[in-house]
């Protein structure tokens, strides 16, 4: 792995590639030229070796897919080094991390610290969310304006909902002063007190307390009203139920400025994955019923859901090797983001470019990042992948201390062959 933070120099020609750029709708055989950290040219005129300028280093893409590096709009940072490696091995070149770090990202100095540490590592580009409320306590607003100036790209209390309606209304309203977006974890906490998985037959059989799907839509419907009332910019994180998607579809239809995303577990798995108390499948929000999973697929296909985030949440073995009720929620997702998202394409629900858009230009647009496009003048953040190549997810091989992939053992299709950040090769699979 050529990970370092030295600037790349010189010209590189990526030839003989299937260029896929959801931002411009480009899908053609061609090539791409980078100069240092920047894309300088892209198109069918660069398909062959002879098209490369003299002196350029030539990378033959072997006819595989070259697309913008993936943009992941929600990860938990955990151990930065392992997370950054997991990211680039999954083709993710930009990621936005939740503020539920220790210390919480509710202060300018922490924003700068996170970004600086990631820059130093020179792998994935990490952008922080700022906290909506001080200490994620849900009571007093954090310094949204100052945090934004320091580099926070949007605001959320992470996996805690801003539960108090008054606080949420003020957050939306105040953030709108500066044109900032509030991202809500959609769950009415008073309805989920002892819940550890989706409410329903499986929870009843296992003797576990359920989180009713209504807890999600209740919060979404409330927040849509608050966004309407305040003129604030609302984004709903990881929607997981059919009713939630309907509520957002209706809100969008009424012209309210609301967007949403989901994560791979919610369109690729359902609550049956918990089986006999499998804690890797304990997530927040919880895995839902099969009808909900199908509704999420539909919401992605019809455009109601604007983006896919990995929800990457690394957990050490000690916090998962516990009785289900005590185990920490969350699953890893960076390494499997591309392959699991591609299932939407392989299963015939969406075109390849449409799937890629959900993990590149769409989240980049929502977060206001200069990323996710194969366009001259943009950063040379690239991923080369084979959408057909099959592999089996092996949690032990995902690297780092954490192994908590909800997709452990799943056969998937879509392998990253090369990952480039700012013109530098940061990942190439070994033999």
């Amino acid at each position, binding site marked *: 792995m050529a990970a370092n933070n030295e600037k790349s120099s010189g010209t590189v020609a990526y030839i003989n590639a299937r260029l896929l750029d959801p931002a411009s709708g480009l899908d053609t055989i061609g090539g791409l030229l980078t100069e240092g950290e920047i894309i300088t040219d892209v198109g069918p005129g660069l398909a062959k070796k002879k098209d490369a300028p003299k002196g350029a280093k030539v990378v033959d893409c072997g006819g595989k897919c070259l697309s913008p590096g993936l943009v992941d709009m929600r990860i938990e940072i955990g151990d930065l080094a392992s997370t950054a490696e997991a990211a680039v091995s999954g083709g993710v070149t930009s990621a936005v991390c939740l503020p539920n770090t220790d210390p919480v990202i509710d202060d300018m100095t922490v924003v700068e610290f996170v970004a600086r540490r990631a820059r130093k590592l020179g792998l994935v580009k990490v952008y922080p969310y700022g906290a909506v409320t001080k200490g994620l306590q849900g009571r007093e607003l954090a310094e949204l304006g100052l945090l934004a100036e320091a580099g926070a790209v949007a605001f959320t209390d992470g996996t805690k909902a801003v539960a108090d309606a008054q606080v949420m209304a003020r957050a939306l309203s105040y953030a709108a002063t500066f044109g900032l977006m509030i991202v809500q974890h959609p769950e009415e906490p008073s309805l989920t007190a002892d819940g550890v998985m989706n409410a*329903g037959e499986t929870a009843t059989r296992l*003797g*576990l307390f359920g989180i009713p799907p209504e807890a999600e839509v209740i919060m979404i419907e409330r927040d849509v009203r608050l966004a309407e009332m305040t003129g604030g910019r609302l984004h709903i994180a990881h929607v997981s139920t059919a009713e939630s998607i309907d509520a957002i579809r209706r809100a969008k239809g009424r012209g309210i400025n609301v967007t949403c995303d989901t994560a791979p577990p919610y369109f690729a798995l359902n609550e049956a994955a918990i089986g006999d108390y499998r804690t890797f499948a304990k997530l927040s929000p919880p895995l839902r019923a099969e009808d909900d999973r199908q509704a999420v697929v539909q919401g992605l296909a019809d455009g109601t859901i604007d983006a896919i985030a990995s929800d990457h949440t690394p957990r050490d073995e000690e916090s998962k090797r516990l*009785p289900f*009720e005590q185990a920490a929620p969350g699953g890893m997702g960076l390494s499997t983001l591309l392959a699991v998202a591609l299932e939407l394409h392989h299963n015939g629900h969406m075109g390849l470019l449409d799937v890629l858009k959900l993990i590149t230009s769409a989240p980049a647009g929502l977060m206001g990042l200069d990323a996710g496009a194969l366009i001259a003048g943009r950063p040379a953040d690239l991923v080369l992948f084979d959408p057909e190549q099959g592999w089996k997810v092996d949690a032990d091989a995902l690297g780092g201390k954490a192994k908590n992939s909800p997709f452990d053992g799943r056969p998937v299709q879509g392998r990253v062959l090369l990952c480039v950040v700012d013109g530098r090769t940061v990942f190439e699979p070994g033999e």
Partner: protein
Amino acid sequence: MKQDGKDKVQFPHRHLLGIEGLSPEEISILLDRSESYVDQNRRADKTSPVLHGRTIINLFFEDSTRTRTSFELAGKRLGGDIINMSVATSSVKKGETLIDTAMTLNAMHPDVLVVRHPHSGAVKLLSEKVNCAVINGGDGSHEHPTQALLDALTIRRRRGHLSGLQVAICGDILHSRVARSNIHLLNTMGARVRLIAPKTLVPPEVERLGVEVFHDMNDGLKDCDIVMMLRLQRERMNGNFLPSVREYFHFFGLDYEKLGHAKEDALIMHPGPMNRGVEIDTDVADDVGRSVIREQVEMGVAVRMAVLELLVLDSSEGDG
């Protein structure tokens, strides 16, 4: 090593973690074996050396007097060495994890671990980390298999069979592992199960387990053969499930008036310990003609002897 050669019966599972998934034949094997121990337990000499030299550890992460005592007695009557470990005296309170506790005990080569734990699924998790047989002595709100077996034995001895009987399970279904194990067992054996409880104490989609749900005692008890009352788990009530004990008893406590809707010879059961005047009227509980509550306790020892024997002897077969 075949000590009891020709009447050796097979129970084809390493552990007893729950009733769900057991076949009618497997349940019958356990019940039939229990019958022989009922007789043994009524003799002057109640012991047989079936588990001589075997070690049984009662590992209780949650307070229990009767289940623990019942297992202890069962192990002793079979000639086994039985040790009680409870949370208060163990290292669990010092922050040792469940898995570490399991591994530590496993290193002492027990033959059986009887485990009770406040969290659903914890006994199953523990069973994956040890080499011996594990008996679920109750896990969270999930299952309590030996309770369901002793209830079934009690009913079978009184009625001769389980199939076709109409059984009502009444009270705090939501928090009850006893209810879940009984639902699975009674359905598997061909009985019909009704649940009677206020809506706040019925778990979501419980109908899919194959039961009928009632919210009125008089309707639900109509023509029932068996009335199983559950303990109102007040210690687990951290919400607003009920407005008051007085109101609960008025609508859902078993008294003679409500019992009048069941069959005239309906049996009254309770897994204990009872809250008299909360879920059951004292006179009903003590009605010698109808209440089989003390008989359930007796059957409990026999059932646990049978389970211990079948699991231990099966596993030693496996060892070759």
